[in-house]
Each structure stands twice: as structure tokens, then as C-alpha cells.
């Protein structure tokens, strides 16, 4: 449904914009109906940039993103509003997502003004009521209040309710859990799982592997703008192959296993801290930018499990398909 194809994003930095910084490099993945795809990466991995490109808040430098086959860069003017009725986003900081001087409901009002201008008030109220209930909130408790009178979890769920008013196909959830308390996190996560079962496609951007593992079907692991490993969630976490993925899995603090035990379980010791030949051996070629081989290096090591590892590819080990 949503298809990200070899997307890259460069920024001009430095005085007079002499240097170029690559935030996202040659990333491809798909999000289908009724599926949660986790985009996992640490800071600087480019995951938020990808989310914003999908939401058309940032332009794409190279590559394309298409929704149901239609290239989204071609959408302009009034088409943009129509695009937003199919794709919406929820961001990390619930308190920053609301204009602090207005009531929280105003986010619904904005949708009404732009998309449902002619609707009758009673019909609108019913719609809002239904949307609020579908995110497991009590309309009497959360409507008509200021943002600081509500908790982070309630605010995030209201934002999801807002997105649902529009009957969307894709939801981009950018770190929506990280600022919530432990006891509310799981409720919001379960809500996303529930929405997924109703056919929504969700791009779940996070740095927390445990959350991604809990909720998603597919996982994409990003490092410094490139995909290092992707595929079905059980396979990526069950058999982490790329050194970076292995380092991530061994560093996540778990609740029933000490770090030392996790490392022992993973088997072979992890060499270095996520260093990878792919990144070090192929620096940006010249000022003109990006070294892009004709096909992205993605080695399928088992069904639905890809690793972006030059070492694997160059070895052409038996059983691996380049």
C-alpha cells in the first residue's frame, strides 16, 4: 500500500552550504494493510526524517514514495489535503503537539474546518464521540479540557482519535510511546494493535526494540541513514545477523536476563561497536555525493530476512542469495 523506494535525503550544511550531509541513504520498504512495520534506530539514524518524508513535511531528495501506486511527490495544491485524509501522523511529545493556549479539542476542530466544513454539529459530535471511544477514552472525561489538564497517554490517544476521524489508511507513529509512563505505554500499544487488526497500516518509529518486537510484523533496522537489517520481526530478533543489530539486542536492558547472559546467548562475541565494512569501505564518492551501487546491497539470508552487509555479499557464502 505504502511503498518507499530507494529514498535518500541530503542536507546542505556548513557556511555557504558547502558540505553535504546524508540523513537517509537508499532506504526501501513497504507497509501493507493491517500491518505494523517498526522502523528502529538510534539518534541520527534518519528514522524521523523518513517519517516526515512520508508525511510530506520534508521533501525527498532522491527516490520515491508511493501510496497505492501514486507517487506522492507529484501531489500538489488541493491534492495535499486529500493525501492527508489517507495518511496521518502522531508525534513524540504529546504536550508539544497541542497548542498550549487552546483546548485539546481544537485538534478535532481543525479537522472539521478543513475536511467537514458543511457538517451538522450534532453529526460531528457523534463522530467525535465514536472516535474518542474507539481509542478507549471516556468522552465526558477528556473533551473540553486544556492539554495540561490531561495526561500524556490521554493526549496521545486523542491524537490517534483525531487521525481516525479521517478514515486513514496509513498512520505514522513517531516515538509516540517514549514520553509516556510505563503503565500507559502498553495501553497505547494495544490500541495500535487493535487498529491494525481493523486494516490500518502503521509505521511504528521507535528506538526501543522491545516495543517494536511486541507489536510489529516487520522490522527495519536503521543505522546512520541506511538499512542494516530488515524482515519479519521474529526472524530479525530471533536471528540477528548484522553486527549492529546484534549490538542493539545485547544492549537493551531486559527484565529477566542480565546483559552478560544476553551476550552469552547471542553466541559469537560482537566485534567492535556496530562497525560495518559497508559503511566504512564506501565513503561518499567525491562531493557529488552518494555512492549508490546499481542495486542496493541487501542479502536475503532466509525467507523474509534481509541484511545490508557487504561482508556477507562479498563472501557469497553458500546458501546465501545475493
Amino acid at each position, binding site marked *: 500500500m505504502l511503498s518507499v523506494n530507494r529514498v535518500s535525503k541530503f542536507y546542505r550544511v556548513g557556511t555557504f552550504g558547502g558540505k553535504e550531509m546524508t540523513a537517509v541513504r537508499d532506504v526501501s520498504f513497504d507497509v501493507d494493510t493491517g500491518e505494523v512495520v517498526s522502523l528502529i534506530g*538510534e*539518534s541520527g539514524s534518519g528514522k524521523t526524517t523518513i517519517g516526515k518524508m512520508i508525511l510530506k513535511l520534508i521533501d525527498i531528495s532522491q527516490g520515491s514514495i508511493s501510496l497505492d501506486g501514486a507517487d506522492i511527490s507529484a501531489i500538489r495544491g488541493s491534492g495535499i489535503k486529500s493525501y492527508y485524509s489517507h495518511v496521518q501522523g502522531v508525534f513524540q511529545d504529546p504536550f508539544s503537539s497541542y497548542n498550549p493556549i487552546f483546548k485539546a479539542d481544537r485538534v478535532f476542530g481543525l479537522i472539521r474546518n478543513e475536511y467537514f466544513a458543511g457538517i451538522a454539529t450534532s453529526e460531528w459530535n457523534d463522530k467525535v464521540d465514536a472516535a474518542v471511544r474507539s481509542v478507549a477514552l471516556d468522552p465526558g472525561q477528556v473533551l473540553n479540557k486544556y492539554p495540561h489538564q490531561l*495526561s*500524556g*497517554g*490521554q493526549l496521545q490517544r486523542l491524537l490517534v482519535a483525531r487521525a481516525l476521524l479521517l478514515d486513514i489508511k496509513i498512520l505514522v507513529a513517531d516515538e509516540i510511546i517514549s514520553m509516556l*509512563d*510505563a*503503565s*500507559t*505505554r*502498553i*495501553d497505547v*500499544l*494495544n490500541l495500535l*494493535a487493535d487498529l491494525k487488526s481493523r486494516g490500518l497500516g502503521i509505521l511504528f518509529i521507535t*528506538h*526501543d*526494540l*522491545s*516495543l517494536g*518486537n*511486541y*507489536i510489529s510484523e516487520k522490522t527495519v533496522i536503521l543505522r546512520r541513514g541506511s538499512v542494516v537489517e530488515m524482515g519479519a*520481526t*521474529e526472524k530479525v*530478533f530471533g536471528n540477528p545477523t548484522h553486527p549492529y543489530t546484534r*549490538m*542493539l*539486542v545485547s*544492549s*537493551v*536492558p*531486559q*527484565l*529477566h536476563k*542480565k*546483559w552478560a547472559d544476553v551476550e552469552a546467548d547471542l553466541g559469537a562475541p560482537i566485534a567492535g*561497536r*556496530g562497525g560495518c565494512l559497508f559503511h566504512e569501505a564506501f565513503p561518499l564518492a567525491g562531493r557529488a555525493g552518494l555512492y549508490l551501487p546499481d542495486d542496493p546491497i541487501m542479502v536475503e539470508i532466509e525467507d523474509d530476512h534481509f541484511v545490508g552487509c557487504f561482508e556477507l555479499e562479498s563472501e557469497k557464502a553458500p546458501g546465501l542469495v545475493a
Partner: protein
Amino acid sequence: MSLQVSDLRVYYRTLAGDVKALDGATFSIADKEIMGLAGESGCGKSTLGNSLIRLDGRMKYVAGSVTLDGNALPIWDNTGMNEFRFRDLSVIPQYAMSAMNPTRKIGKMTGELLESRGENFAAIKPELLRRIDLVGLQRDVLNLYPMELSGGMKQRMVMVISTLLDPSLLIADEITSALDVSTQRAVAETLVSFRDHGFVKSMIVITHDVSILYQIADTILIMYAGKLAEKASTSAIINRPLHPYTRMLVSSLPEVGVRYADKKLSGIPGSPPSLLKPPTGCRFRARCPLAFDKCAEEPPFVEVDTDHWVACWKATGTDA
């Protein structure tokens, strides 16, 4: 070293009245113990940690006593606390790594800090360099500006500075929250190494992330709505929690290996009570699935097993 806190109450002054952020904390920490202090936002953990070392303008000391190594700490007296701060107890505040003066080189800043405490920078410098090596930083970090360091490096630098005078007690407030997963582990392990090397005798590690505590803490103290809920060894809290809140909290945490399709986790319905006019009786009562009549009376924080303290009528075996 030992720390004894007895019935500590610290409130916040606001226009609408006093917010009872910390309402009666009694516990103790033994020598070489790393105690994790966990709870959700608004539970009072930061208030507790900060009140032990510095009450800022908004906080109001109401009652209670704090004894460190046999000396009573005059926490209500800002000047009186000066002789204890940095030497006997030290703090790594939240957002410390963003609080370094961006226009000062790190070495200069450290020097100024020490001189202001009446210490001779030149005399301490060899030890400072030794510790910088120990945490895995380069010695020339003293010549760099804070913005030239990564988050993990800044955090480690702050940790070295805070523990330079070998305090008995270190209070670390959310030092791993803003870091990447790989740096989190490095910083957490550095914290333990400080205790193992003897730079610090005991620690209070304040965080909302219970899984980090499982990795590094000896004991965990769980707080809820300004009151202490449970204190026990780490394995007891994680594997045999007695307080309903602790149980529900621990079971609501997603883990690598646990998937929604296999086992759906559940959270805790409702939200913490207002601390402006907190409810009488047990503060968790409204959200507790085990609540019964006696819960209208506030349960005391008592020791039900060796070194296992709980504030819950059900746990102490007292039934209606």
C-alpha cells in the same frame, strides 16, 4: 556508609496550595548498596532524590530527618548543607549533560568548580585524569568544549566530576534517559564500576526504567503518588513483587521476545491521584484490583520479610 531517612515530607508551594509531592518516606540504604528508585512521573522520586541534597525555591521542607553516616543532614538549610555537598553526598542532576557551560572548556569548568569548593585543582588533577581514563574517555577531553562531545561522553564526564571527591552517597537522577541504547549500557555499567572501585560507597539511581535497574541495582524502591510502595532486593521486586502496583507495573513492561500475538500485556487503568488534595487511605486504592475496606486506612510501610518492605494491607496479611 549508611543513609537513614525518617518520615521525610517535602511539599511544593503553588498558587492553589501545597502539592504533597513527598509525603512520608522512611527507608535506609546500607554500605555499598545501589538502590534504584523507580516510579512513574509525578510519584515523587525526583523530589526525594533532590530534597536529600538541595531543596530549591519551590520546595518546602515540612518534616522528617535524614542521617548520613551518623551525621544529621540539615536539608532545610541551604548554607548548612554546603559543607556536605560534593564531599559527603553528590548528585548528577537530570539533564546534567546539557547543563555544562557551552562557552567553557571542560577542564576550565572543572577547575572552577573545584576551586569554588575550596579544593586545589592542581592537587586533584592526577586523580581526575586517572578517572577519565577509567571511564574510557581521552585525556584531552579537558581541552574540548561540551558541544564537541557526544551525549554518552558528556554523561560520563559529568559522572566523573560529580564523584571526584569520593562522596559516600551519589544520587543519579535519570542519567540514562536521553541516551541511545548502546550508550545507556555503557553509562549504567560505568555507574556500577564507580561503586566497585570505591569512588562512591552507595547510590540512589532514580529512573522510570525498571529494566535498567534490574541490570545494575541491588535493591529497588518503588514509589507511587508521593508515598513508598515497596522496597526489596531487585530479584524480589521483579520476580516476587508483593504490592499490587509493583506487580501490575512489572507485568506491563514489553520485552524482547514477548509479542502481542503471543501474550497481550495489560496496563494499569486510571491515572495517579492529584497530589494537591490526595485521597485518604491508600493512594493506589482507586486503581487497585485487590482493594477492600481496610484500604480506606493508609497502610504503613512495614518489613514483611527480611529486607522486604511493603505498604499494603493485603501483603501484610491483614484482612478485612
